[in-house]
């Protein structure tokens, strides 16, 4: 009797301790997460405010003179100045991103369907080759591209090629995980026995089953291509640069407020795409749970 009582008491103490420490761990985890989120968010918010507000509140007194800037606290003058100065580069970057998305989508549909639906030997090697740009440093890749296709340097197709090499793995991985979650091999075989040719199979089975992956993959390619600096800075000629390079020149040669405004413009174009990306993914996860695991990997940071 005595023994069991102490045993129960002990186990109760132990259980309470366990509960306490698990709650403690949970709180610590959430706290660390919040701190890191703040660390990510703080500079972005501060820069957005700094682009629009007068700068004395940050203790920075000197400011570059800009036409149309007045003494009022809140003005869009600097954003407008940045737009006027760099809008060609913004359009150039948008054009690059657009073509990267379109070409990635076309190539991704064909190649992911071909690889996912068939079972030939050397698939793993081919896949590793396609995914290798993720783990190769971008600067090394762009040097290699220039060495290889240096003749067409100055032509924007070279930059586009760099963007394609860099962004294609993300698109490919998204589409492939979407296809694999639907047992595409069997579907393909069934269609084959029913007499559908390759073209028909691609249009009637492949594209419908990777519809959502296509959307999130395209958005991802857009966001990556829009922010990409390492590859495009080296591949472009100095006169023909994209917007990230323009931001680099703003950071090095212009005042704080102009740089902040350039960053604000960059974020204004980036955020809708990011938001849409998260919306499509959260729809995907809430609809059915079986696909949510594969959807989680869409950012493709799993390594090769």
């Amino acid at each position, binding site marked *: 009797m005595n023994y069991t009582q102490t045993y129960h008491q002990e186990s109760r103490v132990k259980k309470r301790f366990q509960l306490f420490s698990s709650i403690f761990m949970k709180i610590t985890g959430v706290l660390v997460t919040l701190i890191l989120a703040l660390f990510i968010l703080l500079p972005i918010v501060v820069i957005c405010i700094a682009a629009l507000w007068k700068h004395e509140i940050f203790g920075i007194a000197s400011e570059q003179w800009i036409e149309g800037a007045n003494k009022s606290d809140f003005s869009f003058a600097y954003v407008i100045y940045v737009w006027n100065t760099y809008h060609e580069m913004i359009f150039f970057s948008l054009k690059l991103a657009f073509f990267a998305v379109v070409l990635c989508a076309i190539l991704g549909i064909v190649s992911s369907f071909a690889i996912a639906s068939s079972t030939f030997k050397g698939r793993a090697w081919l896949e590793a080759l396609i995914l290798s740009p993720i783990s190769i440093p971008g600067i090394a890749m762009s040097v290699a591209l220039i060495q290889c296709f240096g003749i067409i340097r100055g032509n924007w197709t070279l930059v586009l090629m760099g963007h394609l090499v860099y962004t294609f793995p993300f698109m490919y991985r998204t589409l492939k995980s979407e296809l694999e979650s639907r047992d595409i091999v069997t579907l393909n075989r069934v269609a084959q026995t029913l007499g559908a040719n390759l073209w028909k199979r691609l249009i009637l089975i492949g594209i419908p089953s990777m519809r959502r992956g296509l959307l999130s993959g395209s958005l991802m390619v857009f966001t*990556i291509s829009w922010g990409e*600096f390492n590859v495009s800075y080296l591949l472009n000629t100095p006169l023909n640069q994209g917007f990230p390079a323009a931001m680099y020149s703003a950071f090095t040669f212009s005042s704080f407020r102009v740089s902040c405004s350039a960053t604000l413009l960059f974020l204004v174009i980036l955020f809708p795409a990011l938001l849409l990306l998260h919306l499509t993914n959260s729809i995907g996860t809430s609809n059915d749970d079986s696909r949510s695991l594969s959807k*989680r990997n869409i950012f493709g940071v799993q390594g090769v």
Partner: protein
Amino acid sequence: MGVLVLQSIRGEHFVLENYALIFSDSSFRQALFNSLGLSAGVALLSTLLCLMPAWVFAKFQIPGKAILRAIFTIPLSFSGVIVGFLMIFLFGRIGFIPQLLEQLTGYNHFSGIAYQFSGLLLAYLYFEIPRATLSLESAISKMDAQLENASYSLGASVLQTFLWIRLPLLFPAILQSFAITFSASLGSFGVALILSKRISFLSLELFEQYIGFLNLGLAAAMAVTLVLISILVNIITLSWSNRLGYSRSING
């Protein structure tokens, strides 16, 4: 593509001249060591720090989790240059945080650390947090909760379960996240381009040799060195984690 890089490796006098230069010239060697040290430090730090958020995202149901996750993925589409500028704005000589602290305490703490090693570390951390978090999260969410429950029901404490169940299960994922963040920070030169004033890095030297001096052979040699290092790290961590997985499957 790779073949051409290899072709341009040939030196003027002997074959591996450019590689010899990287390792014999003290400034290049220092740059290489700086790159390796910083990348390893950042990879270690970001992997360890991001275990917590990854755990929270994978296992807990907290309000606003979707928004938090979205915030964590923002830096993925920033290039290094932007991260560098953000860090200058926060921690530069007249950055936001020093100014804020001067208002509060009367002395500008952390002024100008953006240009020092700690600032570089912070900037690269900013860069690597999403990568580490997402790769760890997908590993944690695939983990079997039954093993944990079994260890609890056998009377193990939270610490014991963490040390002997969760950590070994997660070790391959930790290694992988280390490899990803290591190779990503090895290759990114945007941050260093903006921030680094005295400390040199191999990717920065590459950029200078390529753009400034048009020394293509040396630049190509550096590029190949970077690629080889990152491939080597990937292979080592992959084989290590594979071996771990194999031994566990024999034991279990």
